[in-house]
């Protein structure tokens, strides 16, 4: 097993006390003790989710990255299992001849293959299991520098925000169903790069929420973008914002839904999870087939790598066509658009979101 510090490849018997014989640093994981992966593999997941330590990420993104890694490992094992089954079948065919011993070997091979396949089913990574792995990794190696860590008290006190800031507004607003998506965008400077307000639909970040919402009212040409999970509530969020007078109800704005929808699930096979019970009174935010899927499943935005979320949102902002004459003209109320975007080839999570 390789050490992530000195790259020394050591044997189990050499790792006395769980430490690297090369540099003495402690390992977080030990596959011999049934840990599902090595320190190097966990670090590779961190490198991937952070695009080699250049993009900030939340632990929820890392969970999906580790999940993908375990899935890839399971795929390899399954492939090996199928090969054993195939070899067994070949031997059985040969056993039609008097060579009885071939039939025995072939039968055993098929049984072993089936056993391997069944043991390496597509894995899921429960939150509690991921938390356990992450805690062990950070205990051994510290919190990765690109991980988003909230400060105990976020941002300046409202009273310390310069009073003249309240007179200004933003060109755009991104409203997210999860506070953690707000964290992701702010930590990666999306607000700064795109003159963009970023708010959680349920009141995040607390220190600036009402201030920013009042600032948004000062731009009658505000462009609104919505980012969400593929959930009943998420897919209904844009509609809710367009009618709620505390948000954009009664204004003639275009609200563009850039979030995940059931159709995106095909790019993240096996990563949808059972839906939570939908709260009462949530309007339907999708077509009939979409609603049927959403009642059973959900797909979290964190399944998409952070750099891809940022790029897709930027593309949605810059490729937005100008409203045609008469669009929304004279109609009281904001208009919801579903952003289609383009879909690249999937590698199981990296480049498939736009």
């Amino acid at each position, binding site marked *: 097993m390789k050490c992530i510090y000195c790259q020394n490849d050591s044997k189990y018997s050499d790792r006395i006390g769980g430490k690297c014989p090369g540099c003495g640093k402690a390992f977080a994981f030990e596959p011999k003790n049934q840990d599902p992966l090595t320190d190097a593999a966990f670090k590779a997941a961190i490198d991937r989710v952070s*695009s080699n330590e250049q993009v900030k990420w939340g632990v929820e993104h890392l969970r999906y990255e580790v999940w993908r890694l375990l899935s890839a490992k399971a795929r390899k094992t399954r492939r090996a299992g199928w090969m054993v089954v195939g070899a067994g079948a070949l031997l059985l065919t040969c056993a039609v001849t008097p060579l009885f011993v071939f039939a025995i070997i072939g039968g055993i091979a098929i049984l072993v293959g089936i056993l391997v396949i069944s043991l390496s089913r597509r894995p899921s990574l429960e939150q509690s299991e991921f938390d356990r792995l992450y805690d062990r990794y950070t205990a051994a190696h510290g919190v990765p520098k690109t991980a988003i860590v909230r400060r105990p008290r976020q941002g300046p006190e409202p009273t310390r*925000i310069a009073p003249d800031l309240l*007179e*200004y*507004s933003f060109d755009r607003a991104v409203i997210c169903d999860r506070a953690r998506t707000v964290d992701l965008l702010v930590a*990666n400077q999306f607000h*700064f*790069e795109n003159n963009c307000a970023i708010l959680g639909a349920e009141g995040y*970040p607390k220190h600036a929420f009402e201030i920013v919402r009042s600032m948004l009212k000062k731009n009658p040409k505000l462009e609104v973008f919505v980012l969400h999970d593929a959930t009943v509530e998420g897919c209904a969020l844009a509609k809710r914002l367009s009618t709620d007078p505390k948000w954009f109800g009664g204004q003639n704005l275009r609200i563009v839904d850039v979030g995940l929808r059931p159709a995106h699930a095909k790019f993240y096979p096996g990563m949808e999870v059972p839906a939570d019970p939908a709260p009462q009174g949530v309007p339907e935010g999708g077509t009939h087939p979409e609603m049927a899927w959403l009642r059973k499943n959900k797909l979290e935005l964190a399944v998409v790598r952070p750099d891809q979320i940022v790029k897709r949102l930027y593309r949605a902002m810059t490729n937005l066509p100008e409203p045609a004459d008469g669009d929304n003209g004279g109609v009281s109320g904001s208009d919801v658009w579903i952003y289609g975007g383009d879909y690249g080839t999937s590698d199981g999570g990296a480049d498939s979101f736009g």
Partner: protein
Amino acid sequence: MSGIAGYIGRGSADELERMIAAIPYRGDTSDQASGPGWGLACRFWHGRANKTMGILQDAGVAVACAGTLAPQTANPAWTLKQRLLDASDPLADLDGAFGAAVVQTDGLRLTLVRDPFGVRSLYYVELGGTLYFATELKQLLALPQLSAELDLAAIHKYLTFSFVPGEAVPIRGVRRLLPGHRLEYSAGRLEIRPYFQLSERLDPELEDLGAATLMVSRLAKQAVQKRLGDGPVGLFLSGGLDSAAVGTWLKQAGAEVHAFSLDFGAKSVEREQAEQVAKHLGIPLTWVPVDGTTVNAALEDAVWKLDLPFGDPVTVPQYLLGAAARKAGINAVFNGEGGDQLFGGWTSKPMVAAAVYGGMFEDESPEEQYLRAWHRFYGHEEKLYTTFLRDAVGGPGQRRALLAPYLGDDRTTQFLNRVRLTDISLKGSQNILPRAERMSNAHGLDLRVPLFDRELAEASFALPTGFKLHGACEKYVLKRAMQWALPEDIVWRRKFGMSVPVTDWVLGPMADRLSEVLGEPSLQRRGLFVPSYVTSLRAGVDHPAETRKRRIGEKLWTLLMLELWLRAFVDRRGQR
């Protein structure tokens, strides 16, 4: 425009000649005067109106003046002499685009003075007890006793800002007089103090939008009028509001105007708007085609005439605009620079967003946010800098210290005014104005920048900030002032800044040039940058979450201009 040089101490006529010969493109005529312990020289275009022709000598005083005053006077050197030697508040309203030296020959007292916003420059260096000064760095490098030793702390700042800010320049020992400052030198003692500093003075009477709009309109027209001379003038027209407004005021003043606009082919973003403005104002318009090939051909001359490294890709297009204007027989050009800085343009908006969201994850000062807004190599030092460069740039906080007097100014109550103060003092006075002046003067053109007018700038700090950034509408009061004079969509359109297709150039027609200038052998020789990082930029690979392709071009251009500057000014000491 012209150039000057001189010394106080044990200089010589030969040194004066070397310094003034270093800027042949600054005029067709030169003059020198000297006496015991002092010497002055100047180069100028013979016969240009409102300029000083030669060294002025009168009653124990000698004056060399480069540039013009606003309002214009027949002999700026004479006006400056009177103002500087009059003890009663001599420079209270001094304005224009000038750098001047006044020597009181009997007591050997030198005064250097630079215009309020830094259109012209002045550098000085003390060598062996003699103080030498000049309007360009290459003039000082013509002195053989000045060692062309690189100041890597200045390079470090360049790599963040894309220009060299502050008093230090990249040649060790040479200092720059800041805009709006005067320097006194006598008996080996040097004293520098400001004569002009912008500050917030909110005026309750201007809380009325109508009154504010009228004032802006009146002062802006006056600013144009102050800078008008005889004969036709050029206008660098972008298609945006600011240059269109200057064109409007020029026409209203009765000037004969010829507009010049950049044509980036399919990459042009404001072509229709420029045509629309020219047609609306009845101004003839010349398109100046610019692509990677034309830029490549002009690069060496532009770098040499820029005098300091400037990493904004707009410089060479400006050089090509100047060439076209000169070819059309124009001697003076106006531009619309300054509108964003004075009236709260779109560049203020990211700072507003940063102020609201600042501190959610880590302590980040407004200074750090401002540094990041330059989108060069701030925060990427570990990837770009070699160990040698990292060790040589000095301690932390140098770049933030440049911003603290403005962004951290407690006397300025409004956040937007602190950002504007920073923008004017750094981006405007140390980047936009000097580089634009040098690219115009590369072809012997006078540059007139009416929006960077002292009275107008002071008035802009008396306005409520909500009249500048009004909701999300930038430059609101200027738009109100222009709403009946220009087509509606020119006035109220949202602006994104000029888009120079630099990435297309550096990864396309200029790729060969880049592979030589920023190739591994060249980088190894210089020893400042990690070749693998620059190579990946040249392959078109940037930060993974970077959404704008133009940032690759901007970064590569910054490095390209620096290496070309190093070759011209360090390796060849400012010689062609």
